[in-house]
């Protein structure tokens, strides 16, 4: 199916004429009525043609949990996004592995983001947030995405890897390169730019690995942890797997947190009554952070591949079929979340959302992401009575990353 010039009418177009993988649905923020219609009319939907081939769309919360939890049938191999891997760059990562290999690798990496380590990192992270916020240009319009969201998450990543601080913008660049190609998620990055970038990432981290190995100082950042675990001690000798895991940690902790850091500003500006609630009670911040992550759904989908024929909700899914779990849609499912379209910062059960996925692949960095955003909001509220959105946001063209390229704002100090 070639993508037509204009998006079809969401309410009247026949379902078979709608391409749910069209990256413009996110770019133009037009996705809501399309997915609302699927949830209502055909929640487990087969699309016979798309630029990425045929695929199933899973759109209801409970169905997504069921697919996400069933790795025996719904495999994460060979990849977890709607597009297939390009043959020239097969990076291996545990997000795209099934047990037992997945479990072994995840177990090695997970301790670094366990909450007791995070607590140790909190003061450093806070000091970086403070510095960023204290240097914002009061009285001028600036792009929140560049000056805060990207800046902050890049610093966070550099901290996590103990990456050379002056070179940290490379991390963001590599992350963009890893997720931006058209065949993967409908973005605009060309292979000519992407492959050398990823090779540079591999070389840089290989060098860091060897330097750090020599140092052997019992450090507590990610590279040292991987080196100390017997299962991953020789990871550097398997370059595509090494690169894959590094990319996973960069992308995992980059786009997602970055776009949540922008989303909060936008959501509060669109919902002034919620902003007032927050001004009156900063204790709402932890719950609000979860609500921001739900409202934004920074990763719109994850994909699985059926390992064998299975009947799911009355539909015959065939071995080898692509099955796309639309988290974006699950988070708007009224049967799981009350007033799902509304942004409400004091929900009774704010962590009951699907943005982190569920099952054995559930986001490893979820507590880290929550902590970063909590600190950001604590410090924003200490400084500014209003972070005012003064223009329209621009959004990322992708069917995977739901994010922003710009959000013009002005800050009003207390």
């Amino acid at each position, binding site marked *: 199916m070639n993508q037509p010039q204009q998006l079809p009418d969401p309410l009247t177009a026949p379902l078979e004429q709608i391409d749910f993988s069209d990256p413009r649905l996110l770019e133009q923020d037009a996705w809501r009525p399309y997915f609302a219609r699927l949830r209502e009319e055909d929640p487990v939907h087969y699309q016979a043609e798309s630029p990425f081939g045929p695929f199933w769309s899973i759109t209801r919360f409970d169905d997504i*949990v069921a697919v*996400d*939890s069933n*790795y025996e049938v719904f495999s994460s191999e060979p990849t977890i996004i709607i597009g297939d891997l390009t043959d020239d760059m097969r990076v291996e990562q545990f997000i795209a592995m099934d*047990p037992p290999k997945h*479990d072994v690798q*995840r*177990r090695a990496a*997970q*301790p670094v*983001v*366990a*909450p*007791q380590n995070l607590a140790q990192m909190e003061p450093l992270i806070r000091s970086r947030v403070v510095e960023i916020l204290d240097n914002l240009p009061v009285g001028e319009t600036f792009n929140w995405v560049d000056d805060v969201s990207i800046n902050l998450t890049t610093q966070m990543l550099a901290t996590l890897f103990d990456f050379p601080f002056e070179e940290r913008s490379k991390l963001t660049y590599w992350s963009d390169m890893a997720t931006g190609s058209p065949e993967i998620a409908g973005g605009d990055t060309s292979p000519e730019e992407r492959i050398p970038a990823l090779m540079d990432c591999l070389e840089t981290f290989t060098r860091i690995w060897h330097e750090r190995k020599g140092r052997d100082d019992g450090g507590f950042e990610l590279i040292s942890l991987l080196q100390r675990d017997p299962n991953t001690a020789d990871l550097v000798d398997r370059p595509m797997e090494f690169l894959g895991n590094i990319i996973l940690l960069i992308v995992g902790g980059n786009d997602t947190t970055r776009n949540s850091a922008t989303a909060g500003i936008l959501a509060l500006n669109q919902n002034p009554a919620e902003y007032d609630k927050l001004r009156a009670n900063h204790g709402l911040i932890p719950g609000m952070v979860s609500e921001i992550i739900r409202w934004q759904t920074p990763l719109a989908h994850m994909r699985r591949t059926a390992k064998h024929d299975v009947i799911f909700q009355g539909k015959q899914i065939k071995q080898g079929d692509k099955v796309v779990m639309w988290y974006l849609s699950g988070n708007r499912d009224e049967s799981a979340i009350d007033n799902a379209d509304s942004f409400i910062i004091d929900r009774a*059960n704010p*962590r*009951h959302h699907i943005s*982190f996925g*569920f*099952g*054995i692949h*559930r986001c490893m960095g*979820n*507590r880290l992401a929550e902590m970063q955003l909590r600190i950001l909001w604590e410090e924003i509220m200490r400084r500014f009575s209003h972070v005012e959105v003064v223009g329209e946001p621009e959004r990322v063209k992708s069917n995977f990353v739901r994010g922003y390229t710009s959000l013009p704002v002005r800050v009003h100090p207390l």
Partner: protein
Amino acid sequence: MPTITVIEHNGQDHTIEVQSGISLMENVLSNSVPGIDADCGGACACGTCHCFIAEDWSELAGTADPMEESMLGMRPDRTETSRLSCQIQVSDAMDGMVIRLPEYQM
């Protein structure tokens, strides 16, 4: 009503009256004992209702099925006595049971 003792990681203990027929997770939450997050609401899909069953009670609490086992496998602080509290149905026979909560849920 049967009672169960829940010990937080910091040692603080709570003896709560529990309702049979619903999960241990729901019982802990409805008694407002902190330390269980239960992000997935009991679907055995998040691992944030992790607890440790005191030795003498593990038999009564039963064993983890393969799905619970795979979720427990992702816990850095998993031990022999680890269970997901949403997967344990409370029964009258559990009167007096003791469980401990982990330092963190993730």
